[in-house]
């Protein structure tokens, strides 16, 4: 194994839930294959625009942001994997992963950050959750202060969550100055 690292039990998360699989990180990029075949995700080194690490309950999550603005989230890394992979990404790809923190305070107020295809809800600069705008089927302005996002309903076989998010709405008080005059963006 001169080139790269292989990890079993790495799940890919996203709309529809999570799927277990195997992730290979090599000098040419990353390849994830779903356990039992089927879905695969491949991102070439040249297409990686950013990497993130986040501590999540009992494990670590790697975020791979592609130049197209997509973000893949892989979960299941031990702490020692984080340090060895960080070194590997720095030497093989010239990218230092950014460390992000997860908010677990349970607050429903914070900030919305739009980055590429991802909408993040941040509580005190920590990330509470992220959704992909690619999964949004419709946005609606409700009244003067509320923005509703409707999500595509995922009926594919990959969907393994019992309860699926269909709609989420954000209330933007008049006192908020972040999104003044842009009615297309929450």
């Amino acid at each position, binding site marked *: 194994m001169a080139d790269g690292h292989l990890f079993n039990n790495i799940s890919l998360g996203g709309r529809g839930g999570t799927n277990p699989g195997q992730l290979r990180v090599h000098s040419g990029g990353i390849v994830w294959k779903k356990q039992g075949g089927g879905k695969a995700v491949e991102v070439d080194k040249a297409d990686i625009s950013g990497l993130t690490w986040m501590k999540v309950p*009992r494990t670590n999550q790697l975020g791979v942001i592609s130049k197209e603005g997509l973000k893949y989230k892989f979960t299941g890394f031990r702490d020692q994997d984080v340090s060895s992979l960080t070194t590997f990404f720095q030497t093989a790809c010239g990218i230092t992963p950014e460390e992000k923190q997860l908010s677990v305070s*349970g607050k429903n*107020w914070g900030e919305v950050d739009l980055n590429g295809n991802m909408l993040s809800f941040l509580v005190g600069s920590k990330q509470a959750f992220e959704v992909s705008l690619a999964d949004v089927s419709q946005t609606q302005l409700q009244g003067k202060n509320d923005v509703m996002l409707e999500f595509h309903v995922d009926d594919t076989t990959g969907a393994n969550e019992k309860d699926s998010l269909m709609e989420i709405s954000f209330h933007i008080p008049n006192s*908020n100055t972040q999104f003044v005059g842009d009615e297309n963006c929450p």
Partner: protein
Amino acid sequence: GTMDNRGAMKGSGDLNAYKNINDLPTPRDLMIQVDQKHEAILLPVHGSMVPFHIATVKSVTSQQDTNRTCYIRIIFNVPGTPFNPYDSNSLKYQGSIYIKEASFRSRDPRHSSEIVQQIKTLRRQVTSRESERAERAT
């Protein structure tokens, strides 16, 4: 007086369901869960379980359509909501954006009605305890 202000600040500023990431329940199925101990609900969003303190929840309802598909709708407290014990200091957060509502489709009617009951019960317990506490403080 000063003490009262501090009390209000505590109500809002200290709203903290979990102190530590590893205090969250071990992720099981991606479905709505109630964590009685931490007085929180956990919602599956994009493959992760996202906690919300029960005090942020205003109401929860469920509905079933003809295909036995259930819909769970959670409405959160936002500024301007009447009687919200945790909102007394909301001026402090006036620059914030609030999650107002989240709707889920559930594949399991039994789980769906159970979880709605659990959320309602927990909300009632915490609300009555908080209003008793507020009464004692005055």
